[in-house]
């Protein structure tokens, strides 16, 4: 059975700090790894990673995948209170089946 483990489960930081969220996985027929941000209800898409070692970047957020060691990290620099959310990591196997981790709850305090 496909499995995704995220760490830490929760994190409290001050504005301006840099955070690193971790995601390890086990999946058959790996296709991609996805990061989502969930603030209230609908998760919103951040990144999709398919190749090892290639960093994806969007503003203060960046992510990288290591397919050999089966993990990914999501970095957020210069955190803001608007970054407070649950960050979900997911992996895609066959037939677009997406398996999610439990998420990391990030709280950014002023």
């Amino acid at each position: 059975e496909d499995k995704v483990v995220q760490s830490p489960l929760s994190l409290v930081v001050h504005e301006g700090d840099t955070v690193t969220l971790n995601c390890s996985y086990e999946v058959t027929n790996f296709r991609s790894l996805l990061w989502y941000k969930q603030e209230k209800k609908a998760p919103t898409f951040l990144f999709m990673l398919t190749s090892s070692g290639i960093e994806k970047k969007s503003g203060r957020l960046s992510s990288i995948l290591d397919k050999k060691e089966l993990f990914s990290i999501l970095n957020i620099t210069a955190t803001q209170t608007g970054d407070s959310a649950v960050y979900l990591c997911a992996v895609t196997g066959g037939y677009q089946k997406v398996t999610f981790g439990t998420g990391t709850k990030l709280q950014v305090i002023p």
Partner: protein
Amino acid sequence: DAGVTQSPTHLIKTRGQQVTLRCSPKSGHDTVSWYQQALGQGPQFIFQYYEEEERQRGNFPDRFSGHQFPNYSSELNVNALLLGDSALYLCASSTGTAMFYGYTFGSGTRLTVV
């Protein structure tokens, strides 16, 4: 560009009742996946519909069933509701045959079973 639409947004049901949740996928998407998200947990895969058929299923009992219509919209039905079915139910749409670029999620239906 219409995103994924789910209805209703909130629902309260009594144990033993049946419920139907609805989802309209994003324009251009033909695949609908349903997830259950309990409080403090990640979304758990229920099943996926493509071409009006259930293409794959997660570890959920037969009380959970679904349907996809020719216009790609979908319904999730849950029979004999249990207290443990209380959760946020998320619908996600995607394209079934083209390159997968990740899901687009709806805002979910919050189901409370009392």
